[in-house]
């Protein structure tokens, strides 16, 4: 039997894999020691578990375990990377570059750095959501010290050309930070090959627990950071605070499973995503947002023209999805990511993000397809815009009464 509502919001968060939860529990109950305790076996046992997890995180991204620093999640990793590097290297220059489609954890941190006297360039992306390398090259300045580019976009799932960006940064002596919160387990990440200096990770987007993440800090060539959290000098002084052993064990196990299973899992999810895409593409005037080829397999972001997003979400309440328009707040503000792609407001208003995952089934996708057909048809019957378009009216020529 199909259980409703159907969860299609895996980019918001994923359930903890039962195998991960099982591995975590002993570290809450009997193996509760503080990994910083050096004087007894409780501490040694916890420390061993943490180092094993560190190895697993490093293995997924082909890095050295010594390059992994535990944090509370990708938001903290982004803060530590950007503020830590900018402040440490401020003597070299005070210019940073990022993209307009970055996650708020990067954009808002950049705003804070502007208040601290740094200058930040926010690059536009192309209509397909990808960074134009020529635009990026032109933005580099002699005083640029740091670039921050996300690996996979959280809304539209496009994969940025990190390898190319890294080559350019390295040749100019500029540090590169990559927010990889949405990338782990979805794309192959090889930090031996990629010229990336700092990379942020999160556990809960990859079937691990919430509240734990990591920052990769390259050792060769060595990257220095100004610590943002002071205290007992944990994590080689990069980030003080008692390590949450059970969370770390969970992240390690989640990343181990991702490494072992991502090949087969991504093919299965890609088939389901393509089934969903095929199933909705015979609805008139459906537009996919973002490049379809350079995209993670589990994301579909589509606009259903002439249907308003909030009423669509209301109509498909059996599906747990995200809308591109943040219209649950007072202001009807369309997604800044879709706006950055140059989508008109009405298409940005009518966009839905479907993100599939480990526990999505074909039966669920087929249910979603039927529901979308039914409800979009009904809402378009209600839509004066749809009626006008059917009559051949070009909506861009209409003089709308302002209100």
């Amino acid at each position, binding site marked *: 039997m199909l259980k409703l509502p159907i969860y299609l919001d895996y980019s918001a968060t994923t359930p903890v894999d039962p195998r991960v939860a099982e591995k975590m529990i002993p570290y809450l109950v009997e193996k509760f020691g503080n990994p910083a305790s050096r004087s007894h076996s409780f501490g040694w046992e916890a420390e061993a578990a943490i180092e094993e997890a560190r190895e697993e995180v490093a293995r997924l991204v082909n890095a050295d375990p010594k390059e992994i620093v535990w944090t509370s999640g990708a938001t903290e990793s982004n803060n530590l990377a950007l503020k830590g590097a900018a402040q440490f290297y401020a003597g070299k220059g005070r210019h940073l570059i990022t993209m307009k489609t970055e996650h708020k954890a990067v954009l808002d941190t950049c705003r804070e750095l502007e208040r601290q006297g740094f200058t930040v360039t926010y690059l536009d992306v192309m209509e397909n959501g990808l960074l134009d390398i020529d635009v990026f090259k032109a933005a580099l300045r002699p005083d640029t010290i740091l670039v921050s580019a996300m690996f996979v976009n959280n809304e539209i799932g496009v994969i940025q050309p990190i390898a190319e960006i890294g080559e350019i940064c390295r040749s100019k002596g500029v540090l590169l930070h990559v927010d990889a919160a949405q990338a782990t387990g979805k794309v192959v990440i090889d930090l031996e090959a990629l010229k990336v200096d700092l990379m942020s990770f999160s556990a809960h987007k990859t079937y691990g627990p919430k509240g734990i993440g990591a920052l990769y800090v390259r050792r060769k060539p060595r990257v220095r950071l100004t610590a943002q959290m002071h205290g007992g000098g944990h994590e080689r002084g990069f980030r003080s605070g008692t390590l949450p052993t059970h969370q770390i064990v969970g992240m390690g196990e989640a990343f181990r499973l991702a490494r072992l299973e991502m090949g087969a899992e991504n093919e299965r999810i890609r088939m389901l995503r393509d089934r969903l895409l095929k199933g909705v593409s015979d609805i008139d005037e459906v537009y996919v947002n973002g490049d379809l080829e350079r995209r993670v397999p589990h994301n579909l972001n589509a606009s259903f023209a002439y249907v308003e997003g*909030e009423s669509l979400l209301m109509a498909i309440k059996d599906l747990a999805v995200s809308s591109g328009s943040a*219209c649950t707040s007072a202001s*009807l503000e369309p997604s800044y990511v879709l706006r950055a792609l140059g989508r008109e*407001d009405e298409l940005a208003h009518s966009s839905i993000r479907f993100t599939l995952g480990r526990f999505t089934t074909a039966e669920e996708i087929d249910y979603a397809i039927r529901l979308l057909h039914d409800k979009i048809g009904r809402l378009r*019957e*209600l839509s004066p*815009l749809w009626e006008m378009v059917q009559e051949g009216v070009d909506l861009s020529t209409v003089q*709308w*009464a302002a*209100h």
Partner: protein
Amino acid sequence: MTYSVKVLDHYENPRNVGSFGKEEEGVATGMVGAPACGDVMKLQIKVGKGGVIEDAKFKTYGCGSAIASSSLVTEWVKGRTIDQALDIKNTQIAEELALPPVKIHCSILAEDAIKAAVADYKKKHSDHAAG
């Protein structure tokens, strides 16, 4: 966003959805809002003898509250004269549907739609409005 029972009822079972033929006798149209703002309402009234609204239809692009507001006014304007229809105020619509503060603009838009439809009727019939 949580909706009142009445909003949900109008959203699930909207009353008087559709359009009249443009050339039909006594039909007038009010179209308000803009796609970029996230809502557009089209209200049509069919006015008979003595300026009484005999029938009304709507189509709305917008959130559940906008759909419910326009569905409700199609029920309310029927049987009223065009001048009585102008007495319908957004506060009455908002009260009836228990709209939260962030959705008051939906009721204002519905009131504007009535005004626009009546204005369209008066414009079309200004030559022989005396009857």
